[in-house]
């Protein structure tokens, strides 16, 4: 028995999707913690800003790619790309709009790391993205109709 809605052959694809999603959540949570700490701990703000930007590149982006590739593979193998339920639409809205959010997050992170500005925007956008990810995992797991 494989996780719900997934046939025996798509376990690996679902694993990829879930692993990527959980790593993405953890990565965004980490950079949000670092950026908020960077706003408060002025003595170490440079270290925390650079680390937040570095982890955006090293953890958040790769996790998003793994999550999105896994989602597409499950979608195709299960035929959900032809008749998508509403919960799939919410998931894709959050994940695909996530590209824009991640691009902005990367820009703000770079500005914060190199020029010492935009850390407020980085922390705020990262926090909003965490909420959006929470909405997505509600629709992905509970699958409300």
């Amino acid at each position: 028995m494989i996780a719900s809605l997934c046939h025996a052959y798509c376990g690996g694809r679902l694993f990829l999707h879930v692993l990527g999603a959980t790593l993405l959540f953890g990565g965004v949570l980490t950079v949000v913690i670092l950026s908020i700490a960077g706003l408060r701990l002025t003595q170490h703000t440079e270290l925390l800003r650079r680390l937040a930007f570095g982890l955006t590149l090293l953890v958040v982006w790769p996790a998003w790619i793994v999550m999105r590739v896994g989602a597409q593979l499950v979608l195709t193998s299960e035929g959900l790309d032809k008749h998508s339920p509403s919960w799939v639409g919410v998931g894709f809205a959050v994940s695909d709009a996530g590209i824009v959010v991640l691009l902005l997050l990367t820009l703000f992170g770079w500005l914060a790391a190199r020029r010492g500005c935009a850390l407020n925007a980085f922390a705020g956008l990262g926090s909003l993205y965490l909420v959006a990810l929470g909405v997505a995992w509600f629709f992905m797991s509970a699958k409300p109709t």
Partner: protein
Amino acid sequence: MSKYDWLLFFHVTGAFLLIGGTVVAASLSLAALRRERPSEVAVLLGLVRFGVRAIYAGVFLTLVFGLWLVHDAGYSYGSFWVIAALVLWVYANAAGGIGGRREEETRKLAERLAAEGDAPSAELRARQRDPFTLGVEYSGGVAILLILVLMIWKPGA
């Protein structure tokens, strides 16, 4: 939404908090490994506590709602995947607890050294790179990954 849907949502929420918190703790601990100044090590290890809180919440939610789901969905508590997941869950908690206590001692040492001049210290470096602590922490992370594998494939169900 059915009862099963709600149970699954809270169980998955637990999984996100558990793995997400582990990512926070691992990222900050690894970043601390690369720092020499005790004050920087202390700051990074101090932030690990936020990841630990997420892990605690995740540990509680995954166990309670996971066992409830097994009952609700009609699986057997004696199935291989359920027993293996529980054994790995206990191991991951024990490993996290042991590693966490050692990291806390390292953080306290870093804070003391920071107050005494903030110079790089061989003792702090050795403590950060202690093979036992690193081994316990990494094996706990692998155990969590294996639980995710069991949850997806459910061998023996």
